[in-house]
């Protein structure tokens, strides 16, 4: 067992553990913190996959921005039902979805087993950020700009939506 | 563009003119509607003249094409007439005038919309009979559906919505099946021209399946017995002026379709299921008559009577010989006139006495002797008295069916007696029955009301006394079909 595999196993275990904790925690804030754990371990996996820049972005956006935003969201709303929050709804739906998801994973497992691309990119980690930057500003400049517009629109929309009703008048 | 196009779209003149008149001027509107409904009649008389002088009336204009070689499809705008559809066109034009005149007297509110929708309906009906292309036929067929739905739903009786919806539902299913048939034919033949389809060779199984689908599609319209409940409801709920068109022409689309498409496209398969059709006809005939016998309400009685009479049409079609087919066509026209007149009278009676229950109408011949007299006359026509149109068709139909299926024919003759029984029961109880109708000062037939009566009664007598006046038109259609059957 190489070190690489060991690191992978550790990170994967943390990620899944975080996800499971998120699903089973009783307090919303705990859930969120568990998820941050998952996000961080995924960032670690990105590093393993020679994607240092993405890993940094992952830490910044997910572990940082989105998590903070969620915390704000949680704090701005009341969560009386926190104590009563059941992980699995008593209805059949929980079981149904659970079984479906297990099956889904099984199917994916079977399918992934059959995948073999063979090729490996050798030099992604060499000047990773530079490569991304070059591509973004040359090849993908239009999508990049479009995404920026999407972001702008989304944030303006979010502000508008979150504004109090009386403010609009 | 040809006379036929002008004929089919001639009601548009009325529609446009009516739209130009403000809705406050009711009198002017009525005048315009009546006058404009004469236009199709003039057109159809011209077409009649042209047809009998041997002119070629058919039109064929490229219309829609799609797909790429070798799977290209063409739909053409094709109009044309056969002898049978010609008389149906005439019948439509005549009944439309009569119905419009009736409507001016009996439709009180929303007159303008009523007239507009009726004229639209007329385009649909005329188009159905004049088209020579299945796609075109279907478009016109659907065009009859919507105005009719609105007309029933807005101007009907107590349960008008229910009636309108059951009309739409049944006929919608019917046209859906029809559409499937048309598409299958289109895909298999590559054209929807009547002749092209008739000449195409389809496998036996396919044509049998298509034929049965057609039987259901037009069986809804005709209607064939288990599919008839909508029609009774419409007869009872729709305004009598509308039922005149409905019973007079719309139901005939079923008969026309069965003859034009059923036998016309699949003669061999039709031969195979002719006994089934005959039995269906028998059931229609007897079942309708039996139920009509115990009805207490005039409109439902004559609705079942229509079912019974359509049984005769089915028998005639099932006979698959000259006499039977000619009888079926004759019956189609004859019943169109008779039913229209009956419902006109019912409209008059309902208008003036505000009831249509037989028990409440006793002694009509005292209060409204002329109405009662005409009702008796049309009742007699309906039960097939010689000298009236009903007899000729019954005679020919039974002549035909006795040749091909004597046993069914023999059972069918019971229908003649039953028809007499229920018609007499109804007519006698109404016109001559115990005098329940005590109201005084009920006006009898008068003035404008004589127009519909005299036109229709005159035509019933005309084709009853001189049947050749009608048969010399439908003869060509009969011959064409018989040639197809190969008999």
């Amino acid at each position: 067992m190489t070190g690489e595999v060991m690191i992978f196993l550790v990170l994967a275990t943390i990620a899944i553990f975080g996800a499971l904790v998120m699903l089973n925690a009783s307090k919303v804030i705990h859930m969120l913190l568990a998820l941050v754990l998952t996000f961080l371990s995924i960032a670690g996996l990105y590093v393993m996959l020679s994607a240092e820049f993405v890993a940094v972005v992952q830490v910044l956006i997910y572990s940082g921005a989105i998590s903070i935003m969620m915390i704000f969201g949680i704090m701005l709303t009341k969560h009386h039902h926190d104590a009563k929050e059941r992980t699995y709804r008593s209805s059949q739906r929980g079981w149904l979805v659970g079984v479906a998801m297990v099956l889904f994973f099984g199917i994916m497992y079977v399918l992934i087993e059959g995948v073999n691309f063979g090729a490996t990119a050798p030099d992604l980690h060499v000047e990773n950020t530079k490569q991304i930057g070059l591509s973004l500003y040359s090849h993908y400049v239009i999508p990049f700009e479009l995404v920026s517009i999407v972001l702008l629109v989304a944030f303006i929309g979010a502000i508008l939506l979150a504004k109090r009703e009386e403010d609009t008048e | 563009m040809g006379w036929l196009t002008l004929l089919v779209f001639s009601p548009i003149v009325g529609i446009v003119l009516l739209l130009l008149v403000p809705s406050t001027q009711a009198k002017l509107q009525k005048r315009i509607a009546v006058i404009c409904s004469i236009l199709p009649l003039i057109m159809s008389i011209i077409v009649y003249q042209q047809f009998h002088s041997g002119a070629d009336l058919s039109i064929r204009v490229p219309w829609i094409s799609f797909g790429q070689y070798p799977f290209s499809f063409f739909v053409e705008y094709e109009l044309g007439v056969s002898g049978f559809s010609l008389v149906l066109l005439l019948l439509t034009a005549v009944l439309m005038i009569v119905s419009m005149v009736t409507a001016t007297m009996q439709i009180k509110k929303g007159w303008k919309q009523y007239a507009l929708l009726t004229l639209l309906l007329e385009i649909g009906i005329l188009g159905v009979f004049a088209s020579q292309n299945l796609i075109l036929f279907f478009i016109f067929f659907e065009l009859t559906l919507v105005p009719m739905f609105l007309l029933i739903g807005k101007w009907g009786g107590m349960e008008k919505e229910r009636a309108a919806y059951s009309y739409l539902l049944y006929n919608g299913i019917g046209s859906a099946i029809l559409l499937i048939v048309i598409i299958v034919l289109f895909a298999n033949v590559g054209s929807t021209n009547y002749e092209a389809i008739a000449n195409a060779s389809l496998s036996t199984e396919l044509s049998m399946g298509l034929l049965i689908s057609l039987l259901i599609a037009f069986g809804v319209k005709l209607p064939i017995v288990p599919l008839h409940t909508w029609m009774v409801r419409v007869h009872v709920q729709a305004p009598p002026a509308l039922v005149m068109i409905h019973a007079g022409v719309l139901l005939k689309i079923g008969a026309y379709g069965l003859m034009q498409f059923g036998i016309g496209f699949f003669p061999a398969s039709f031969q195979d299921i002719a006994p089934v059709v005959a039995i269906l006809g028998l059931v229609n005939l007897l079942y309708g008559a039996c139920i009509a016998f115990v009805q207490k309400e005039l409109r439902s009685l004559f609705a079942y009577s229509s079912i019974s009479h359509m049984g005769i049409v089915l028998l005639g079609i099932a006979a698959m010989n000259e006499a039977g087919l000619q009888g079926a066509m004759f019956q189609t026209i004859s019943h169109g006139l008779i039913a229209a007149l009956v419902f006109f009278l019912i409209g008059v009676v309902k208008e003036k006495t505000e009831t249509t229950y037989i028990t409440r109408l006793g002694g009509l011949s005292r209060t409204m002797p002329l109405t009662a007299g005409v009702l008796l006359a049309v009742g007699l026509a309906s039960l097939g008295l010689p000298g009236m149109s009903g007899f000729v068709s019954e005679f020919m139909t039974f002549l035909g069916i006795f040749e091909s299926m004597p046993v069914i024919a023999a059972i069918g003759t019971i229908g003649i007696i039953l028809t007499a029984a229920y018609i007499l029961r109804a007519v006698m109880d109404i016109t001559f029955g115990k005098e329940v109708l005590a109201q005084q000062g009920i006006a009898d037939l008068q003035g404008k009301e004589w127009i519909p009566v005299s036109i229709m009664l005159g035509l019933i007598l005309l084709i009853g006394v001189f049947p050749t006046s009608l048969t010399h038109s439908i003869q060509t259609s009969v011959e064409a079909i018989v040639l197809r059957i190969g008999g």
Partner: protein
Amino acid sequence: MTVHAFLLLAAALFALGLFGALTKRNTVIVLICIELMLNAVNLNLVAFSKFGVNPAITGQIFSLFSITVAAAEAAVGLAILIALYRNKATVQVEDMNEMKG
């Protein structure tokens, strides 16, 4: 290390996220679960950029876009949540059934 391990991990995270999104009653958690699913997908993208048929930087760039859109989504989702909460004073998914037929 093969691509399989990453793909399996991503699949597992995706399944867990989907499960949460479909069963959790708290809207915030549902949103969080959706983020988890997006992460799983991103993991796939990045994995393919290393082990794909045509391994290239494109996968990473795409995952960047995806993260951006996810951020926008989270922002809008939370805004909607706040607006809803203001109107209905609840964040329970069951209570948001305006589309009930």
